[in-house]
């Protein structure tokens, strides 16, 4: 029943989103005109090679209008993105609900048959669509945006992806990609699922062994300080695996959709580091233990 109502809610939201997108374009075409005007005025000023008070006043007016337009455009874009996020969270809820239902009934585990390649694509996809944080001027990136860690009392919600430190079968400790199932405030412990269904393991771990993954990408163009810097020690998801390993940042992303380029600690290479590999912002977290084991 709940699923049905969620479905209608989603389709409502989708049509609202459609409306918003249309409005966005209206807004954009409206400001387009003014931007062209600015462009022209700039050109004229540059060809005349002087700046008369007339142009100054004119430019000021144009800039003010363009500013208002840009604000309006930003606002509506934000609303569209919020709408998308809302839809996605509904979808996510539905997925978790389905998963719990699946576990309880044990009749058709939803992802049992998922092949590794599919899982990897899914992980890539989720990294790609991690929302980009675009602050208004003067706003600071929030916790869990890029390299900014969660506040100390932050509790990851069920369904959130985290890096979890678990004891593997051979006794080695490993950071794996996991999904939060629940959190017990009494014991300060998380229950997490290994994302790699092959393990089909559920771990109960103290919160010290959990690092929440970022929930926004940091925009290198506007908030470069929210990114890990070159040579910083991090935990990064090794490509085509579901494990995090220690790595050094080689180059931070240059554009919003770019990945980090990192050097994994790897003793099989002469200098102790792998060649640069790309890892999405979503799968790079701060490394808590600086000492080498």
């Amino acid at each position: 029943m709940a699923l049905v109502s969620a479905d209608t809610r989603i389709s409502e939201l989708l049509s609202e989103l459609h409306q918003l997108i249309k409005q966005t374009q209206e807004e954009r075409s409206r400001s387009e005109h003014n931007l062209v005007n600015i462009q022209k005025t700039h050109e004229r000023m540059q060809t005349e090679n002087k700046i008369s008070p007339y142009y100054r006043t004119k430019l000021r007016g144009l800039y003010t209008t363009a500013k208002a337009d840009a604000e309006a455009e930003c606002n509506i874009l934000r609303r569209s993105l919020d709408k998308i996020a809302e839809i996605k969270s509904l979808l996510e809820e539905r997925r978790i609900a389905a998963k719990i239902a699946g576990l309880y009934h044990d009749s058709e585990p939803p992802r049992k048959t998922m092949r590794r390649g599919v899982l990897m694509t899914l992980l890539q996809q989720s990294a790609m669509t991690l929302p980009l944080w675009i602050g208004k001027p003067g706003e600071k990136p929030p916790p869990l945006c890029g390299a900014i860690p969660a506040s100390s009392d932050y509790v990851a919600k069920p369904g959130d992806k985290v890096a979890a430190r678990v004891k593997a079968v051979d006794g080695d400790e490993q950071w794996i990609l996991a999904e939060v199932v629940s959190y017990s405030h009494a014991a300060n412990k998380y229950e997490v699922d290994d994302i790699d269904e092959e393990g089909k393991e559920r771990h109960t771990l103290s919160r010290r062994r959990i690092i929440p993954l970022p929930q926004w990408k940091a925009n290198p163009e506007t908030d470069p300080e929210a990114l890990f810097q070159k040579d910083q020690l991090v935990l990064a998801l090794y490509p085509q695996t579901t494990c995090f390993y220690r790595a050094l940042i080689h180059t931070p992303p240059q554009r919003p959709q770019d990945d980090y380029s990192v050097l994994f600690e790897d003793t099989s290479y002469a200098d102790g580091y792998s060649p640069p590999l790309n890892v999405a912002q979503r799968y790079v977290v701060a490394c808590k233990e600086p000492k080498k084991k």
Partner: protein
Amino acid sequence: MSELKDCPLQFHDFKSVDHVKLCPRYTAVLSRSEDDGIGIEELDTLQLELETLLSSASRRLRVLEAETQILTDWQDKKGDRRFLKLGKEHELGTPIKHSKPKKQKLDGKGSHASGPGPGRPKSRNMQQKMQEYEFTDDPVDVPRIPKNDAPNRFWASVEPYCADITNDEIKVLEDLLKTPEDEADYYKIPPLGKHYSQRWAQEDLLEEQKDGARTALSGDKKKGILGPLAELDSKDVDSLLKKSESQHDQPEDGCPFGHLTQRLLQALVEENIISPVEDSPIPEISGKESGTDGASTSPRSQNKPFSAPHTKSLEVRIKEELIAQGLLESDDRPAEDSEDEVLAELRKRQAELKALSAHNRAKKQELLRLAKEEMNRQELRQRVRMADNEVMDAFRKIMAARQKKRTPTKKEKDQAWKALKERESILKLLDG
């Protein structure tokens, strides 16, 4: 009218994202009718494209804010002095480096109410303004947030370090150099006072005298000889004091002669060669001796004929003679000094003070010299500014001529050349 190169604006390209090329999904969604709607599977792509648009729009917003602010600042500043200067500085490179603090100062003082930096201090205001915008949706009606005066306060605090040196300051420096005459006080070595044992003795005596006077007052009141008695008493005290003094000077009781004299005499006596010596020194001494002898018979008035100068001068003379003969070491005095700890300490401190004040004076002189030099440079800079204005005047005239499509007159040209050359020569002076 200003030239383009003086313009702080950067003429950004504000073109918005070409969504047809960069955001295909967005474009596709736009062209759809209401009924077609959006599929869930499209959300991810759509999200990325919307993010691209938002990123671009918010970047545009930031740049516009900055540029508008620059434009406002620029417009507010009548005459555009600062920007002209900025331009000039770039042209000339190093020569005006020295005038930098100067310039800041001017800007701080200038009619312009906000901070001197072209954009930075203001951008804070902008951000505050932006936050206001969040709540109201109409950016035009929002009143301006009161200006942030932190930059002003900062520049005011820096001001004293960058300001021009004034004549007053030079005068203060000169006064400082003049003052040291009262320092002489610190180099005086006060004469050695009485030893405390003596002083105490005197105080005790005075005390006793007072007590005596009191008893006399109470006891012999009727006799009315209070005054003379007191006088007598004080005389007694004086004589007693003198006596004790002379005793102090002369280690051997009763003998008025210095110990060198005595030793010399003893030596002569023991050797039993009085008779040959009798010729010259003895009569003198015996003369003295007879005098003293006469006096010593009446112990009460002992001091009077003893008057120290004689024996003392004799002692001194003997000592001098002995030193001259090489029988005595002359380094008597410093040895004596070294025993005086207070004096030694005083000397040490005085030496320190001397060194310190010499150092201070040297520094003050150096400072004065630098200040005077800087004054000269300031004057030159003043002239450079005037020359700058002249050059600008000439430039404007020529530009006006050019605008009217006529060649500048010879007079205008000459004036321009003159202004330029003058400016150059001053700059050379400033450099040299």
